[in-house]
């Protein structure tokens, strides 16, 4: 067994969504319940299925990162790079030659940049000979492009990993990071998730949502946290915004088999609370992933109700950011931390993040938050 701690200290974070840019702006939007739903008609080069979305209209990487080296970045990679930049600007951790080998990146994504990939395939499939594909596009077709480019951009040489997993991607990435720290692979990592909005993703979400009867608008964005070995952060005098006390993943069986869906989540939450050494009645808020797909949301509602009754407050980030697929879990955590950021009354209180995926996976993270006030 390793001797490294079983927990993570979050010492800074960054969010980029249509609701806000950076932790402070996002936190204000969450506190005020300000939605990022905007008019997207005519904002993209192809027709969209809906006129409104929680999209970053007019977003260009160069406006945030400068012109140098940004012209060929796909959207997912740009969102990830900026999320990393915002998180690094929000923490006391300074990455330099002394520690860059010990700081990694763990990102959750749905499918890299679907747009870059499909553009590439389309060019491949439909162009006349002699066909010419922009060779600068091609690293973008690799699914771990965002994490790899972020490492190069920010010069982070610690373990670099891309975790896939839809709704669970955020919690999976968090858990993966906790394990890397625990095994001494890294002292810290930028951990988060990213999801892009494009005509391609909008249409595929639209078809899927129509099948499921989902009304939630589609969104995009990234949320990235600086997660450190708590001992290392403490020794350096950095105070955490949050402690990730436990991340647990479980599953539920198809309808009619065991474990029942709600029970699957309830068991997972209970296990996470037990690992964290926290009682259910100490939990002040649950940041749920509610996707708008009724069967999934019912699983989540039943699981949460079974553990907390109606006692804990619900934090529903998708009311503000829309459905951001793989970025959901990370944005839920960001929303939870948003409530802590300026509110000393919540110092030391514990919240829970829950995720439910259509493929039978459920997850729960237990997080103790602190203010910066």
């Amino acid at each position, binding site marked *: 067994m390793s001797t490294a701690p079983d927990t993570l200290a979050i010492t800074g974070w960054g969010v980029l969504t249509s609701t806000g840019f950076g932790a402070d702006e996002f936190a204000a939007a969450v506190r005020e319940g300000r939605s990022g739903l905007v008019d997207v008609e005519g904002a993209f080069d192809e027709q969209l299925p809906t006129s409104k979305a929680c999209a970053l209209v007019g977003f260009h990487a160069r406006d945030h990162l400068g012109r140098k080296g940004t012209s060929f970045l796909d959207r997912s990679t740009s969102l990830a790079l900026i999320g990393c930049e915002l998180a690094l600007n929000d923490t006391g951790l300074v990455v330099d030659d002394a520690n860059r080998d010990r700081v990694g990146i763990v990102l959750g994504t749905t499918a890299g940049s679907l747009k870059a990939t499909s553009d590439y395939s389309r060019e491949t499939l439909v162009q006349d*000979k002699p066909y010419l594909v922009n060779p600068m596009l091609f*690293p973008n077709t690799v699914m*771990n492009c965002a994490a790899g480019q972020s490492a190069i951009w920010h010069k982070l040489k610690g373990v670099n*990993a891309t975790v896939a*997993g*839809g709704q669970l991607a955020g919690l999976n990435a968090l858990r993966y990071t906790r394990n890397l720290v625990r095994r001494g692979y890294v002292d810290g990592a930028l951990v988060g998730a990213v999801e892009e909005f494009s005509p391609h993703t909008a249409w595929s979400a639209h078809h899927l949502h129509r099948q499921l009867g989902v009304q939630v608008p589609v969104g995009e964005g990234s949320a990235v946290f600086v997660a450190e070995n708590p001992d290392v952060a403490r020794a350096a005098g950095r105070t955490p915004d949050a402690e990730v006390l436990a991340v647990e993943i479980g599953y539920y069986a198809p309808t009619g088999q065991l474990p029942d869906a709600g029970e699957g989540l309830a068991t997972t939450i209970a296990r996470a609370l037990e690992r964290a050494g926290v009682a259910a009645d100490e939990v002040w808020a649950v940041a749920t992933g509610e996707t708008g797909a009724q069967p999934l949301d019912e699983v989540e509602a039943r699981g949460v109700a079974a553990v907390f009754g109606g006692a804990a407050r619900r934090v529903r980030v998708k009311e503000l950011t829309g459905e951001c697929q793989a970025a959901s879990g990370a944005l839920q955590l960001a929303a939870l931390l948003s409530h802590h950021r300026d509110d000393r009354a919540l110092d030391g209180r514990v919240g829970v993040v829950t995720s439910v*995926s259509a493929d039978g996976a459920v997850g729960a993270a237990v997080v103790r938050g602190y203010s910066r006030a």
Partner: protein
Amino acid sequence: MPSTITGAEIRTCLGDTTTTFKALAEGVSGVSPLRFHDTAKLNVTHGYQIDDGDEERPRRAAGWLAECVAAAAAQAGLDTAGRRVTAIVGTGLRELRSVERATADDVPVAPEELHFAAAVRAALPGVAEVITVANACSASGHALALAEDLLAADEADAVVVAGCDATAESMLTMIGRVADAPTTSVRPFDRDRTGVLLGEGAAAVVLERSGDGPTVLGVGLSCDAFHETAPDVRGIVAAMRDAHDRAGVTPDRIGLVLAHGTGTALNDPTEAAALTEVFGAARPLVTGVKGGIGHTSGAAALMSLVLAARAVREGLVPPVTGLVEPIDEAAGLRLVVGEAEPITGPTVVQVDAFGFGGVNAVCVLEVTP
């Protein structure tokens, strides 16, 4: 903390573990003309593809993955009832090919179909958790490192570690863009090598805290943070040294290295330089499998690992298929050229895997015949 591989199966263009090993030992290559793609457009004519019918089946990667997971679990006698079993799938491209076909045919793809939870659950009911790690060509090596941790922390009783990838048009395009003329075979470490070709398939192993089978001593990881596609000798050396430290071995204890060996202009000299730097006077046998089965992307690390274990058990190290005249940078390496080399007794093996984005995973395992 060592863990044991209690079951393993791979699926390559040469068949399962047994037929693949036999073909490699005889220096046979599985290369063939590309099956489902417009080769004239791609500037790629060949690949190491699995012959599974004249029509391209949907979700091929997921299919081979399910086969291998079921076979490895059966070998290990893995019972998910009452035990905590996690699955970790390493992949370069997930079901990217399904996205391409959806784009071409305008059929929407469900996001859930892009990772592999459903495929694994179908093959192994009762698995508690399925994690997909998309880490390019070293993905299944990263998956193995994570699996070790879950066992060490007592968060699982057994972990199914797997890797899979199918030929994707965008990857073919990529290869076609960087090649002057189409390559017809992968020739790792050879002076006349002309580049890489895609392989495809899947690999799965069952990892437990104890049992009969090869022992995973440690996995080293690093990230170059240097270039999207070009490897960096410093990052690779760092991963090798991390692996040795974690495994508690010095280079002279390692008897066999399964090189990443992609046959590209950049990889081979870089990897050869890193091996020379790390091993110095210690001269383990060095071989590689991509000349026989192509570059299997996310499955590559585990493919090499399973075939290395088989080699020690059979007492025979297959030659590097396609290697005739080694490059100067490999002058200090004992590359297995032309004929298979005998190997005896328990052997510590190093398995290299390096991926785009500079993600490196080096595994060290001990195999007893």
